[in-house]
């Protein structure tokens, strides 16, 4: 997309806390109506980036544009206060004002904008209907459950139709069941309203479920930008591979290439010959370079006997333990110096110490550099 179409654009954004560079040259553009998630572990700079967009932090370098307006630019000395940026924000603690009713909470943004009384009433009620709280309009916020507060916060953020809504880990205070339910609901709402959204979370499954695009961050630096499937299937590096989902990572050496596939050699420790596997990826890596093999637990098959037909990459191992999780069995297998996690769909009686054979198809292995 060209920069002209972007609803929110960050250009080489930088923010320091003391000597620490919390946000490091972050460049990103978000299209109108898009749902973009900033994902990363705590302290990765995602919340700071969001607060810079909101105007709650002043960036030390770079520009921020919302719509056609530059709202912050360190070089031009531009800095708009949060109230002048026409944004909506939903906070982790909901920040629903306890001294106001649900209606007053939601109407606040319209009152501040001096909307006429009948418009306030109509639009507030419409927003409350949208989040399913119309019948609780006169309730005080203190009388609401966590999920309901979350909806109030959402209605409050969208009622005046801001250019962009910012979400700061809004679901992390809810319990697991409610959280899963709210994810789906939030996405539905966002699609319905069509409002541009930037969402911050440390929960990778939240990011996968909700986003059009995911921005993975670590230590203030963007690691990868892409749609959820791409991020999961083709992580750009070992950090992304292990942060999104579960991945078995093994260090090895690149020894060959044939077509789409590359050949790797992975040492398994003393007494065992190194494992030779073929996998996809590895673009840009030189022969002999140290690379990392990444395989998802659900892509590894367990065989009690050595498979007779060729099944791709194959190795032997010993069961360490198994964990029953209802819909599948999680099994740890020792292969040489490596411990591999394997996910087994059907209930099989595997005993600790038992010998098993593991296989995975070359297209399920990914060769990563760095």
């Amino acid at each position, binding site marked *: 997309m060209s920069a002209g179409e972007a609803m929110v654009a960050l250009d080489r954004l930088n923010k320091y806390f003391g000597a620490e560079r919390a946000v490091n040259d972050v460049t990103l553009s978000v299209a109108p109506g898009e749902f973009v998630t900033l994902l990363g572990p705590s302290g990765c700079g995602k919340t700071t980036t969001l607060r810079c967009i909101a105007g709650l932090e002043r960036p030390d370098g770079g520009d921020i544009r919302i719509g056609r307006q530059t709202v912050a630019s360190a070089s031009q000395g531009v800095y708009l206060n949060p*109230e002048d940026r026409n944004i*909506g924000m939903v*906070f982790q*603690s909901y920040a629903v*004002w306890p001294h106001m009713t649900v209606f007053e909470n939601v109407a606040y943004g319209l009152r501040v904008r001096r909307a006429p009384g009948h418009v306030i009433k109509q639009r507030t009620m419409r927003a409350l209907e949208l989040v399913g709280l119309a019948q609780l309009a006169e309730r005080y916020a203190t009388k609401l459950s966590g999920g309901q507060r979350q909806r109030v916060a959402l209605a409050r953020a969208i009622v005046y139709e801001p250019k962009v809504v910012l979400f700061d880990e809004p679901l992390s205070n809810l319990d697991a069941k409610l959280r899963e339910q709210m994810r789906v609901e939030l996405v539905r709402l966002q699609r319905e309203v069509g409002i541009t959204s930037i969402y911050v979370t440390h929960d990778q499954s939240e990011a996968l479920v909700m986003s059009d695009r995911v921005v993975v961050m670590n230590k203030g630096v963007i690691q990868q930008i892409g749609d959820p499937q791409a991020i999961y299937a083709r992580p750009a590096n070992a950090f992304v591979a292990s942060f999104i989902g579960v991945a078995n990572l093994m260090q090895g050496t690149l020894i060959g290439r044939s077509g789409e596939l590359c050949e790797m050699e992975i040492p398994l420790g003393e007494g065992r010959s190194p494992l030779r596997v073929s996998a996809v990826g590895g673009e840009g890596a030189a022969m002999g370079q140290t690379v990392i093999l990444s395989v998802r637990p659900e892509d590894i098959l367990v065989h009690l006997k050595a498979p007779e037909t060729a099944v791709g990459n194959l190795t032997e191992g010993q069961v360490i333990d198994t964990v029953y999780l209802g819909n599948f069995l999680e099994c740890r297998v020792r292969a040489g110096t490596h411990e591999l996690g394997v996910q087994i769909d059907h209930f099989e009686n595997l005993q600790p110490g038992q010998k098993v054979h593991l296989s995975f198809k070359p297209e399920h292995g990914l060769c990563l550099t760095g």
Partner: protein
Amino acid sequence: MSVQTIPGAAAADAPQSSRWRSLVTQESVSTLVVSVIVGAAVILPLITLVVSSFKVLDSGGFDTTWGFDNYKRLFTDRIIPKAFVNTLIISFGSTVVATFFGVSLAWINARTNCPWRERLEPYNLIPFFLSPFVGAIAWHNLASSKTGLLNVWAREYLGIETHLLNVNNLWGVVWVTGIFFAPLVYLFVVGSLRRMDPSLEDSARTTGAGLFRTTMTVTLPLVMPGILSGAIIVFVTAAGEFGVPFKLSAPYGWETLTTQIFSKAVGDDANHYLGATMSMALGAICAAFIYVQQRYIAPRSFTTVTGKGFRPNVLDLGPWKWVAFGYNIAFIMVAVVMPILCLFIVSLHPVWEGRIFLNELTTINYEKTLFWWQSGAIKAATNGIYNSFFLAFVGASIAMVLSLVVSHMIHRTKGFGARLLDFLCVVPIGFPGIVLAMGVLVTYIQTPIYATLWIIMLGYITRFFPYGQRNISSVMLAISEELDQSSRMAGASWFTTLRRITIPLLKPGIFAGWVLLFIIFLRELSISIILYTSGTETLSVGVYYLANFENEPLTCALSIAQTVVLLICIIVFRRVAGREALTA
């Protein structure tokens, strides 16, 4: 599986279940005993007070009959109705002054970038620990119309004809009471300001409200319950304040209910029954206000703290931060530095006429009021040193033991007893010291403890143990009940758990509460003034005696001595309790 690790013979030496004895345990017996003691201590004086208020003393001064005459006198007396109005004026006025200073200082210290605000905070709080009576004496010497130091200087250097300020009236009482009670409001407000979840304000900003609008529509309403609670406490405390009006306004014709209770209840032609009736009137007002605060305002406090360690939003005042700083310093000057300095200067003079004579400075005033071994010592003053320290030390210790058990019962046992105790702990807060002292006086006047230190101690503990109890309770609420339970599960009895787990965990709360009570007892006036007799004077009674019967320099000398001790206690308190102890 290694079965042998199970204690094989466990059943052999296993205790047999006792008969259903859940009613007679260490826990329940202690609870019962303490409930009865607390109940008697709190309820008895109040009942006696009510009964006494209906006893009418005949003209001979010996026999009493039952009737409403005392209540009629509240309205027909020459002075009492006026005193009533004066009390209300003082209460309202000082509430306004204290709220203004308290809220503004709390906001500056908690939410602006005022320079050195962290360092200034302890000094803002000092008046909370000092005696308002001594403050009144100091301000009398600073700003009485004729000999007040400020007025003398104003005449001398500014050429003002009469006087710049005059504190010998109701407004003087309002001023001194207001600045001394400002820290009370401060403490009620600063916690919620400082630990307010910043996203409550951030969300208003992102919604489109400017800074001013956010402050007026979000920040202020959220701390309003705290402000109202603080204001009500100030109103009630000011209504029960005896020392300040006694020193500043009563001698000049502005009597209050407290000064009237004192002059009617103490002295040769004392009429305890009329005193009791006036106490009823004062107590009723205060209790009503406290009821409103406890019932309607305290529960409205918004939970603005979400548990995470937030940094509050700090407002950059720009160059105005120096104005805030100057304002803060000015408060410390008028509330702490100038009064103490003035007392000190006066105390060094043999006589005081409003002028400093550097060549006449003397320590004779300290010798006469503190050196009890010297022949020229004034007994009424020197008695107070021993008596007050005894009362403070023993009283605080007894009160804290009581508080500990009461808190434990309120928070760790459930049921009717706990709720009753909780209520009993609020009751004394609703009654001014002088009212409670009247109750204690009429209850115990014919028992052996009358005219001893013990009756004063009884008054102190009854009135003030809720303060200690609150200190312990706040710590107890913060520590999980599971800490106690896991000790029981580990095999320890109730008492062992109390000794080895509960008390050590509460140690900071216990000690902070102890020091707080020690400070309060050391400066207490309005209970002591009703209950003392010759020989059982306290420090504050000594100051009263000197102010009433001796000269200003002697009064100031003992005031300074008391203030210095209190300042030392404050330092100790901050050491043990930490910065957050009071604001929690």
